[in-house]
């Protein structure tokens, strides 16, 4: 037994060091990535800008003043005013609250539903796959607009207070858009589950949940992250479409998407760029930030990527 007992002396030396969990470790790598930091800084800025910023605005309690409408940026109104004379900067900040929440929450829901259902369908195959994927077929083919119109009316009939509807919207957005991600995840899992390391988990008798969550899902993470980044932008932009159907924000509360689409004619486009450039830039910054973070996360979870 010399070989067995001999190395055990080393043990004491080594186990003081606590196991760096995959998360802590990823976090560590994440922080080393300068893009990640940049992304994080932008995102935090956008959050502060939206949630704290309005308290610094002198126009919080300002009245509508049409005679002061459509003013270009000036010292008083850094980003100009809209057609009702409201301060664009303040509206931009207020809009961020909604847009950021919707964008991020809807995306999380998509990932949760799409990731879970895609994994399950891909992993188990058989009738579960058939049911999930046929359901996905139906949902994917389902026309968005009429559903939304109907939901808008239903919510109205149910007398759900308009300001609360935004929370339902996040679910709805998530619910009708998980299909793409589910398909993506499933396709990759179909291939991954046939690889040898999955046979190895079978030998170990791991629980299915563990096989999926710990072994399969991390391997589809890159795709999921791309989906998520794109999803945030998508949700922010499509929120405005929902707002028109009584599902999104209720005017006068603004959202970025709403501000953008309020300027959708040639005149505002050429004559009043201050109406659409700020929300456009805000969306872009958010998306870029989230992408940087997503990319860094991808790298952080990729053991072969060393920075």
């Amino acid at each position: 037994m010399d070989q067995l007992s001999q190395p055990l002396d080393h043990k004491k030396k080594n186990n003081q060091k606590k196991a760096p969990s995959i998360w802590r470790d990823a976090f560590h790598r994440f922080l080393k990535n300068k893009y990640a930091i940049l992304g994080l800084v932008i995102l935090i800025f956008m959050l502060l800008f939206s949630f704290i910023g309005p308290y610094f605005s002198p126009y919080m309690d300002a009245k509508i003043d049409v005679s002061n409408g459509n003013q270009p940026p000036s010292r008083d109104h850094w980003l100009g005013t809209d057609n009702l004379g409201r301060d664009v900067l303040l509206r931009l900040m207020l809009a961020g609250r909604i847009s950021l929440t919707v964008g991020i929450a809807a995306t999380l829901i998509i990932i949760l539903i799409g990731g879970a259902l895609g994994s399950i369908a891909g992993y188990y195959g058989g009738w579960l796959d058939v049911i999930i994927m046929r359901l996905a077929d139906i949902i994917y083919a389902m026309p968005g607009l009429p559903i939304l119109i109907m939901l808008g009316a239903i919510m109205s009939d149910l007398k759900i207070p308009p300001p609360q509807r935004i929370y339902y919207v996040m679910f709805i957005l998530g619910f009708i858009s998980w299909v793409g991600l589910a398909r993506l995840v499933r396709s990759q899992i179909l291939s991954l589950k046939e690889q040898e390391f999955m046979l190895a988990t079978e030998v170990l008798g791991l629980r299915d949940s563990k096989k999926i969550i710990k072994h399969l899902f991390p391997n589809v993470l890159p795709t999921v992250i791309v989906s998520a980044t794109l999803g945030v932008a998508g949700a922010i932009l499509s929120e405005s479409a929902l707002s028109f159907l009584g599902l999104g924000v209720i005017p006068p509360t603004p959202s970025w998407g709403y501000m953008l689409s309020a300027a959708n004619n040639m005149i505002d486009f050429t004559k009043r760029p201050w109406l659409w450039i700020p929300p456009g830039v805000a969306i872009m910054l958010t998306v870029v930030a989230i992408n940087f973070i997503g990319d860094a996360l991808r790298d952080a979870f990729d053991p072969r990527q060393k920075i």
Partner: protein
Amino acid sequence: MARNLVEFRNLKTYFYTEEGVVKAVNDVSFSIREGETVCVVGESGCGKSVTALSLMRLIQSPPGKIEGGEIIFDGRDILKLSEAEMRRIRGNEIGMIFQEPMTSLNPVLTIGDQLMEPLMVHKLMTKKEAWNKAIELIKQVGIPRAEQIMTSYPHELSGGMRQRIMIAIALSCDPKLLIADEPTTALDVTIQAQILDLLKKIKQERNMALMLITHDLGIVAEMADYVIVMYAGKVIEEAPVKELFKNPKHPYTRGLLKAKPIIGQRQERLYTIPGQVPNPIGLGNYCYFSDRCEYAMDICRQKMPQLTADKSGHKAACWLYEGE
């Protein structure tokens, strides 16, 4: 005497990991002559594969990096060549058999496709010629049903079959140098013998040099002209094969020879070298084998021994022989 085909001069290949720098190949120098078989043996993880990969310039970077030294191949410094020049050497002048046959084959391409590729690129064969040649190669490495194998995918083959496919790919363009990283681990002895015979034959016919990385001292004995023994990123001993087996100098080499079970000479327990390979991160300037060495002296723990040759040209890096 044949001229040097490859010469490693103070090669250093490091991996930059989070915990620190892994000096996988640490100042390695040796050479391979034309038509010669050099076997590289050594503790698992001592840097044999990395040495070979450095020669191919296929170290993944980051984290790996060739930090210094030169590799002269056929008169050119490999490390200074352009990518395009390197491409003409790879697969054509130097063939390589990778250690892990499963992951080294592309899972979504058929065996035939992967075999025919270098033939069409380097030997400019037509598809049909390449196909025929590939079938011939498959047969040569002893795999039955060659036509079917051509259209199979890697996961449908057994371990040994994949390994032989790798061998076939490496041999396909008649390289001047073949690097074989444990080419026969997954092969049964009859096929192994067949493959070794094949390699010998090709060597003779084409004056191919062979860098053979292996653990099987039986194979070393059978194939090698010259043997390099590595330990923890360094060459610790090198000698012609007969000299090495007859007169192993470094205590590690001696241990290796002792640990090998030999058929018909059963022991109750196999001999093992006590202890562990040291952590390659942050190694100091001393003999890395010192903590496992039964002959260790004080100096071993303080100073790094240099690789020095004795009169017969048998080189070893050990303080035991420093005085000779």
